[in-house]
């Protein structure tokens, strides 16, 4: 494997970047055009789905490239939710699961956004044909038309749910509470690690998103400091700031390599969990650090609603909780690295 973009990945990245440049996220965290529709048309929501099921037959590396660009543009689309659901369905590989994939429905995995592989899962009750219970803080549920629900050791498919939007710290990836009041559901199969698999793949993909966030923050801050003058000179010529930005760049160099290796590992299967933990725990912290530095180094303007950096701060902070905080992921890493407590 190479940790550089392949040619296909370079082209994919450019295509996504072009789409997002045409549809920038506003400071309110909304986006004008139908970006999600365009991503679907470009086949980018079904990248890892086999071609015979109507997908692109690509891998998680490609998914990570898209996630990185979506992070860089902090685009409010339900991409991560789709990643989780697709990963779970691919892992299940049962006939009804394949059917959901083939249908192309926007599916959501109904677990709290703050879940992580190895952590506890919510308890919805299944009685054989119906589901009852509530799951809080589910990502990207508002757009879903198919709900994958872990209950009693199996995964279930519900076609309807009561989705209550929640005021979210990260308005570009709002969470919602999802309730099932005895709604009809189809059993997709034994969980068999499908949810854990989805959360682990999600963590690797999220790491790429975080690299995109961090790079935007660094690039935007550098550009601002080059043109902002104080004390008769560009602020970017002040050495203390230069050194901090150099340190941040160094962190991003490590984060980028870790995220790429983690995405690759989801495809090739070697060290998939170890590298997902390494990448997600590192990239989460780098993205938060980058966003916090961006706010600080923009000075007052970075504290205003008018400047988009606040969207990145909120996304970075929310991402550092989503799919496992760095501390929780390191706890998962410990036995994999043979470093027992």
């Amino acid at each position, binding site marked *: 494997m190479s940790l550089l973009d392949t040619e296909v990945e370079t082209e994919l990245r450019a295509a996504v970047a072009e789409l997002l440049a045409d549809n920038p996220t506003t400071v309110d965290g909304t986006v004008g055009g139908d970006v999600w529709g365009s991503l679907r048309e470009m086949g980018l929501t079904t990248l890892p789905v086999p071609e015979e099921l109507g997908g692109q037959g690509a891998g998680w590396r490609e998914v990570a490239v898209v996630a990185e660009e979506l992070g860089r543009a902090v685009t409010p689309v339900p991409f991560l939710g789709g990643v989780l659901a697709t990963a779970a369905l691919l892992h299940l590989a049962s006939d009804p699961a394949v059917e959901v994939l083939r249908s192309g429905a926007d599916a959501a995995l109904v677990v709290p956004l703050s879940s992580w592989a190895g952590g506890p899962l919510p308890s919805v009750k299944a009685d054989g044909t119906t589901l009852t219970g509530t799951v809080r803080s589910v990502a990207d549920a508002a757009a879903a038309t198919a709900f994958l629900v872990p209950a009693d050791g199996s995964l279930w498919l519900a076609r309807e749910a009561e989705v209550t939007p929640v005021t979210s710290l990260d308005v570009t990836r709002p969470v919602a509470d999802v309730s099932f009041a005895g709604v009809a559901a189809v059993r997709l199969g034994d969980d068999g690690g499908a949810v854990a698999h989805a959360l682990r793949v999600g963590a690797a993909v999220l790491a790429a998103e975080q690299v995109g966030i961090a790079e935007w923050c660094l690039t935007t801050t550098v550009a601002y400091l080059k043109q902002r003058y104080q004390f008769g000179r560009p602020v970017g010529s002040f050495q203390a700031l230069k050194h901090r930005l150099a340190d941040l760049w160094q962190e991003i160099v490590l984060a980028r390599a870790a995220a790429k290796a983690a995405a690759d590992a989801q495809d090739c299967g070697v060290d998939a969990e170890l590298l997902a933990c390494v990448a997600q725990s590192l990239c989460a912290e780098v993205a938060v650090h980058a966003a916090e530095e961006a706010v600080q180094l923009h000075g007052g303007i970075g504290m205003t609603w008018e400047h988009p950096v606040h969207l990145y701060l909120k996304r970075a902070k929310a991402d550092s909780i989503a799919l496992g905080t760095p501390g929780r992921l*390191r706890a998962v890493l410990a036995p994999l690295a043979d470093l027992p407590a």
Partner: protein
Amino acid sequence: MTGADLLERVAALLAEHDPKSTDRLEFLRARFDAGLAWVHFPEGMGGLGLPIALHGVVESALAEAGAPDNDPRRIGIGLGMAAPTILRHGTDEQRARFLRPLWTGEEVWCQLFSEPGAGSDLAGLATRARRDGDDWVVTGQKVWTSSAHTARWAILVTRTDPDVPKHRGMTYFVCDMTAPGVDVRPLRQITGEAEFNEVFLTDVRVPDAYRLGEVGDGWRVAQTTLMNERVAIGGRAAPREGGMAGVVARTWREHPELRTPELHGRLLELWARAEALRLAGQRLRDGLAKGHPGPEGSALKLAFARLSQELSGLEVEFLGEDGLRYHDWTMRRPEVVDFTGGDAGYRYLRAKGNSIEGGTSEILRGIIAERILGLPAEARVDKDVPWKDLPR
């Protein structure tokens, strides 16, 4: 005058104006006239010319008697910044006109210093004041003005001579916020709130009688204001767990189910640092009481900002699922600032401002390095160039 004398004076005030039966404003005016507003101010200006250390005696005695206070949080800029500047640089007429209603809270003050193009570099400001008869005509844009929408008066720094180096061409005024040409617009922050305002000044007429200090002397006058701001921010007394550390500690205690060893270690480290910060504040006040102000105020502000940010960041992470939620994005215009209010997300976002407002942490580090540690200044490129020729 001793502490005992002072207590007698307080007793006399209370005897003549029983807080239970006296109108609040009337009581505050009487307190001011009795020299018990700020005892370190001169006689006739609300004080008695006493050491500042004695002021606590008055505050305690009046609080114990249930006397009303002047709601200092609402009028902090007047008390902390405008008043010491007027006292030091104002004329007798200005002191007589402004100090009493400032202290009683009848007139709220705001500060028109920062500009979009001159943040940390106050001396780079571009708001122009041109002399016209007995008035000055002021045009420009100010930003980060808290209380502008409730303020009657502002302290204002302007550029009166663009042809001399920047520190020498500034003049300091009191500005009537109700004058024509003053336009106050809310400035929304990343929290969703608008604590601050942008203030657009268009041909605002300011009488020369409202000038503080000499023409061209605005930089020096502004130093008085800023020095007092820094002391005010760094020097507050606080009980253990008085600030953000207490908020986060309570959240921790309420949620045993969310605790992890890693967060526990980080919380303890921050809690210990917060306790040390509290003790450093106490040590600073011990020094102030002995007449040795000490330079530690800037350390406290630096440490306070960092701690608030780390603690509030930890709290959001600790809350996990609930940390992903936010109480309300609706724009509001709060009258007072509350660093520890709202929910964890609000505190996290609001704390980001602590290292920017009132002097950024970067500016503060430079001041510490040069003025306290005595490290050499960097070569300045903007010292001897006319303001109008500086790159912007």
